[in-house]
């Protein structure tokens, strides 16, 4: 680590932030540094183990190099250095969540009251008790987040959402900026630069969790009506309160299963966005949701999604490392999503796939505080430089 990392304390403490004592700040910063150390110092050793030991043995046995990431994974499975890196990386995720939960639970009464107060008349939130959490969300707790985004432990609970909000810094080393909303900020910046005349009046953000993507979009288009949907009650509650705390009043957070958007009229949105959403879907929902997006999107409108890069054309070793999250970070659909043929998928869902584009969207942060991403120590799967893919209808 050549330069000092930002402290967790640099995050903007909006009204909903729990009280965090200095010891817990130390722990949060320790985990941040540990993540960077693992990415920058230990992960390169995994590559050395592959290139110097595992790959030559594979070639010796098969007379060829591994043809895909699955062969690399099987060949690497017994490598002790990989096992150690994996075990430690898994632990940092688990430790982050344990720490986040313990901080939030200690201040839960206060947080819950603030959420209620900010939501007030409830005009910016619409919950629906009839919405069930789909299997692809409930089967395992995604990215080892106990309770995922939807579990409630008491009335009006927002524990899982609040813990996510304070903990994401640890995983991204602050590269998402002061409000951990660098993705949405980046998208707004990209639209302003590349499509300055595009002024969407109605925006739909799907799988919004706590609004990290929807809020900056609402700020970028203050005259637009933004609808942000998710199936997770605590996240929607927290998101609605957080948006108000940040002075953003043009978003309505709605409990809607993206696979059933019957409540939205045909051609009723100019812009439909997702951020780090598709990799938590499944084959069926990827088809039905994108087909639904096609239906609700106006002709001439744009749908754009932020994700980590697709595996296409990447060396098989890098694909293997990028795919770590599938089996090790409770992201069962991660690999299948990242190997999908995006053009074919859009075509199958009714779009003209030939119009699809991919671009890089860089998380917009205050570099004076948070620094810049170091490409030499990319923590694959956590990079703040996101792949955006989209299509104009």
């Amino acid at each position: 680590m050549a330069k000092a990392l930002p402290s967790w304390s640099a995050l903007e403490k909006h009204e909903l932030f729990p009280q965090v004592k200095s010891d817990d700040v130390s722990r949060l910063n320790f985990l941040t540094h540990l993540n960077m150390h693992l990415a920058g110092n230990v992960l390169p050793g995994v590559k050395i183990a592959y290139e110097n030991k595992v790959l030559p043995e594979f070639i010796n046995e098969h007379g060829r190099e591994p043809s895909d990431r699955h062969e690399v994974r099987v060949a690497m499975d017994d490598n002790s250095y990989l096992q150690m890196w994996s075990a430690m990386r898994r632990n940092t995720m688990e430790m982050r969540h344990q720490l986040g939960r313990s901080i939030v639970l200690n201040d839960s009464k206060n947080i819950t009251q603030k959420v209620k107060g900010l939501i007030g008349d409830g005009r910016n939130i619409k919950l629906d008790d009839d919405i069930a959490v789909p299997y692809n969300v409930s089967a395992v707790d995604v990215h080892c987040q106990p309770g995922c985004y939807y579990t409630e432990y008491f009335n009006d609970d927002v524990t899982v959402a609040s813990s996510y909000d304070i903990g994401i810094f640890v995983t991204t080393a602050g590269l998402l900026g002061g409000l951990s909303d660098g993705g949405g900020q980046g998208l707004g910046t990209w639209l302003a630069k590349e499509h300055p005349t595009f002024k969407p009046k109605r925006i739909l953000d799907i799988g919004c969790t706590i609004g990290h993507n929807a809020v900056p979009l609402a700020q970028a288009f203050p005259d637009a009506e933004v609808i942000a949907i998710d199936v997770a009650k605590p996240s929607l509650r927290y998101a609605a309160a957080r948006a108000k705390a940040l002075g953003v009043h043009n978003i309505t957070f709605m409990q809607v299963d993206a696979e059933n958007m019957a409540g939205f009229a045909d051609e009723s949105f100019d812009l439909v966005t997702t951020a780090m959403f598709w990799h938590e879907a499944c084959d069926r929902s990827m088809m039905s949701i994108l087909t639904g997006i096609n239906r609700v999107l106006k002709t001439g409108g744009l749908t754009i999604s932020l994700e980590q890069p697709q595996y296409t054309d990447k060396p098989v070793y890098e694909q293997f490392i990028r795919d770590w999250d599938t089996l090790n970070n409770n992201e069962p659909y991660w690999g299948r999503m990242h190997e999908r043929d995006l053009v074919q998928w859009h075509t199958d869902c009714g779009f003209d796939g030939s119009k699809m584009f991919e671009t890089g969207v860089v998380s917009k942060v205050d570099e004076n505080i948070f620094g810049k991403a170091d490409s030499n120590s990319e923590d694959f799967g956590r990079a703040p430089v996101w792949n955006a893919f989209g299509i104009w209808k």
Partner: protein
Amino acid sequence: MEFAEKLALANTKAKGKRPEYLLDKQTEQTLSITMALAMELHAANERVASLECLLEQKGIITRDELNNFQPDSEETAKRSLDTQVYLNRILRVLDQEKQAMATNDESVSEVLEKLKD
């Protein structure tokens, strides 16, 4: 919310069978405990550093007073609760293994199979 309930909730295991990385379960658990200890030691070091800065700045107490400090009964009780939180955090992996043994989580591979088509 009761203290005991907060402890239990803080250590909630993420749903989904945990992968095993190392030679055996005990080694796995020892690594987890060691990593938690490393974090706690870091926090303790930083707190001591903060204390020393503050004490030096304010000229309040001497190192000898620090070395000979005796907590009163209220402080002793508070430290007992802090110690319980501390052990809860360090021994998380054993707590979560206990939860795992009581449930029958699907592995991510099994879920992945079900999510296909």
